[in-house]
C-alpha cells in the first residue's frame, strides 16, 4: 500500500519550475500557523489594478503591443511597487526599491549559495502518509499536488559542493511545499545532509523556511525534532561548522529544534522567526504584539541570532564564516583518561559516528 519515493542524485540545472507559494498552504499544513500572509483580496485587487491601469498604460507606451501577459509582473508585498519578474529573479527575489525579501525557492537558494558545479544529494525514501490522514482532502492527495507543482518529492532540497571555495552541504526548505512543514521526509533528509557533511568533511548550512511540524503525519512529525537535532549534533561533534540561515518564515517545531542550535545563526532581513504564531498568541493570550515582533531584527535584539543579513551579502558572510571556522579533527571521546566502566556522572563525549554506526 505504501508508496515509497526515492530521490536521485542529479546535476543541477535539470527541471526547475518555481511556482509562487500558496498563502493558504501555510495555515493548512503547519502546527503553528504564524502570521498573515498576503491575502486573496489583496492579490485580486492587484490583478484588477494591473489589468485596468498598468496594462493599458504599458500598451500605450510600447505603441499598441497586443498582449502583455500578467505573469511578467510581481508586486512587492513590502512597498507595493510593480516589479518585472525577470529583474526580480536577477535580484534573488529582493525588491530593488525597498529591499523586501520575498521567498526564494530551494533550487535558486542552492544556486545562490553554492559555487558552480555542485550536485544534489540523493535523499532516502520514507514511508509516505503513515497515518493515512484525511481531513476534507486526503493528505496523500495534497502531497501529490505539491509534488506535481514543485517537481520535487518533499520540502527539503540538499546540495553539496563548495561555498566560496569551502566544502559545504546546504539543506534548504521550500515554503511553497506544504508550508515547508517538517515530516518524515524532511527529517530523514536532514539526517542524510548531516551524514553527507560528516562524510565529506563539509560545513552544514541549513536554510529553514517552515511553518513547523507537518501535522498530517501526527507524532511521526513531532519526533523529527529530536531526529533533526541528532543530525546537527553529529556535524558539530565531527568538528564541522553547523550554520543556520533563518529565512521568512521559520516557526514552530522547526524553530524549536535544529533551527536554533547552530554554531552561528544568520537571519535574512525582515524574516519572521518564532515559536508560536502571532495569531495564536493574539487569540489565546490576547496580548498585543510589539512592533517588529518576531522579525529578524527583533531576534537580534533579543540575542537569538548573531546577525541580520541581506540576501545580497549572505553568500559572502557565509564564505567569511567558513573561512574562519575551519573544520577541526573529530572530537575524540576522552575515555582513555578513565579506566573501567564509565560512571554516568563522567562528562565524556560520545564518538560522533556512534549513532550512525548503530544504524547499520
Amino acid at each position: 500500500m505504501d508508496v515509497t519515493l526515492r530521490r536521485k542524485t542529479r546535476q543541477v540545472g535539470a527541471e526547475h519550475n518555481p511556482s509562487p507559494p500558496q498563502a493558504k498552504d501555510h495555515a493548512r499544513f503547519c502546527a503553528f500557523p504564524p502570521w498573515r500572509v498576503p491575502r486573496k483580496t489583496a492579490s485580486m485587487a492587484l490583478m484588477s489594478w494591473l489589468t485596468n491601469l498598468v496594462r493599458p498604460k504599458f500598451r500605450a507606451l510600447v505603441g499598441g503591443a497586443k498582449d502583455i501577459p500578467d505573469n511578467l509582473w510581481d508586486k512587492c508585498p513590502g512597498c507595493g511597487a510593480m516589479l518585472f519578474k525577470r529583474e526580480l529573479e536577477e535580484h534573488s527575489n529582493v525588491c530593488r526599491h525597498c529591499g523586501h525579501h520575498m521567498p526564494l525557492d530551494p533550487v535558486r537558494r542552492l544556486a545562490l549559495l553554492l559555487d558552480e558545479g555542485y550536485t544534489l544529494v540523493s535523499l532516502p525514501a520514507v514511508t509516505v502518509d503513515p497515518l493515512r490522514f484525511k481531513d476534507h482532502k486526503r493528505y496523500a492527495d495534497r502531497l501529490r499536488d505539491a509534488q506535481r507543482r514543485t517537481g520535487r518529492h518533499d520540502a527539503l532540497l540538499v546540495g553539496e559542493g563548495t561555498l566560496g571555495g569551502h566544502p559545504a552541504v546546504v539543506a534548504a526548505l521550500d515554503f511553497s511545499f506544504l508550508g515547508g512543514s517538517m515530516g518524515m521526509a524532511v527529517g530523514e533528509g536532514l539526517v542524510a545532509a548531516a551524514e553527507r557533511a560528516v562524510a565529506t568533511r563539509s560545513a552544514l548550512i541549513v536554510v529553514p523556511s517552515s511553518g513547523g511540524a507537518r501535522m498530517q503525519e501526527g507524532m511521526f512529525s513531532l519526533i523529527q525534532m529530536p531526529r533533526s537535532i541528532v543530525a546537527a549534533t553529529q556535524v558539530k561533534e565531527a568538528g564541522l561548522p553547523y550554520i543556520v540561515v533563518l529565512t521568512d518564515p521559520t516557526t514552530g517545531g522547526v524553530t524549536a529544534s535544529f533551527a536554533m542550535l547552530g554554531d552561528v545563526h544568520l537571519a535574512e532581513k525582515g524574516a519572521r522567526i518564532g515559536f508560536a504564531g502571532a495569531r495564536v498568541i493574539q487569540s489565546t493570550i490576547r496580548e498585543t504584539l510589539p512592533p517588529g515582533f518576531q522579525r529578524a531584527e527583533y531576534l537580534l535584539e533579543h540575542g537569538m541570532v548573531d546577525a541580520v543579513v541581506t540576501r545580497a551579502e549572505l553568500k559572502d558572510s557565509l564564505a567569511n564564516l567558513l573561512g574562519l571556522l575551519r573544520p577541526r579533527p573529530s572530537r575524540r571521546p576522552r575515555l582513555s583518561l578513565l579506566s573501567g566502566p564509565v560512571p554516568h556522572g563522567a562528562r565524556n563525549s560520545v564518538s560522533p559516528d556512534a549513532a550512525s554506526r548503530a544504524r547499520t
Partner: protein
Amino acid sequence: MHVLDFEKPVAELESKIDELRHLSGDGPLPIADEVGRLQDKVNRQLVALYSKLTPAQKVQVARHPDRPRSVDYIRTLITDFFPLAGDRTFGEDLALIGGLGRLHGQACVVLGQERGHDTESRLKHNFGMAKPEGYRKAQRLMHLAERFGLPVVALIDTAGAFPGVEAEARGQAEAIARSLETCLALTVPIVACVIGEGGSGGAIALATGDRVLMSEHAIYSVISPEGCASILWRDSGKAAEAASALGLTAQDLNRFGIIDTIVPEPLGGAHRNPESAMAAVGAALSEALEPLLAMDSRTLVAARRAKYLAMGRKGLT
C-alpha cells in the same frame, strides 16, 4: 468527582450505590447483596467503556480534572523530595517543578509538568504551560543529574509550551531546542512518562528519553485535536475527527514504536483510583530505569540516538 459525558450511566449507578451504602449503615444483609450486585454492574460497564474508548474520549480522560497530576505523583512516589527552583538566568517557572528525591530508593532528578487542580493552583502553575525559564531550569537540573550520576525521571502533562510575547522575547524556541538537545546528550539515563496530555514541542522537550512510557489513557500529539481541527477542518468542532486522525493514543504510539511502554490504568481510568494509577507508574518507571542504570554513558547515549534515528524507519504499513 467530575463526570465525563460518556460516563453518565456509570455515574448514576455509582450514586445509587453510595445512597444504599448510606442507608444500610450496619443494616441487614439484603442491602449489601444489592450493593454488590450494582458494583458488579458498574465494573462490567467500566470494563466495556474503557476497553474501547474512542480517541476523543481518551482526550477527555487524559485531561480529566481529577486525574493525578505531577505534584500528586511526586508526593506519592518520591521520598526525600527536595524541590529546586530557578533557571539562574531569568526566573522560576512553576509550570515545571523539579528537584531531587528517591524513586523506590533510587536517588534521581525529577522533572514534572504541573497543570494545577483548581483555579488557584492552575494560575500558579500557568496551566502547565512552561516558559523558556521552565525549559532552562530543566536543562540545569539535567546537568546536575549528570554531575552526580543520577537518572532523570520526567512526568509529562502539558497542553504545550506557553505561547506569549514574553516567552517569544526570551527565546521559547531556543529553550525547547536546547532542552531536547540536553535530553539527547545526557550521559545519565532519562525516562519519561506521559501521565496526562503530551502536548507537542512543549512535551517532547522533556519526553526525549531512553524509555518513554505512557499511561493507558494518556494522549501525546503533535498538535491539540482542537488546534488541528480549526486549521485543517477550519472548524474546531471537528476535534473528535482530528483526534482519531492524529493517532495520539498510547496504543497507536506503542504500535508505531514512538513510545516504549503502556502503563495500565485502574478500571475506569486514573481519576477513579489515583493511588493505584500512581503506584503502577512508579513501578513501571523503576522497571524501565533498572537496565539503563547498568549501562555505561557511551553506550547509553549512542543507544538513545540510535533509537531516535531508527524511529519511523521500519514497521510501518
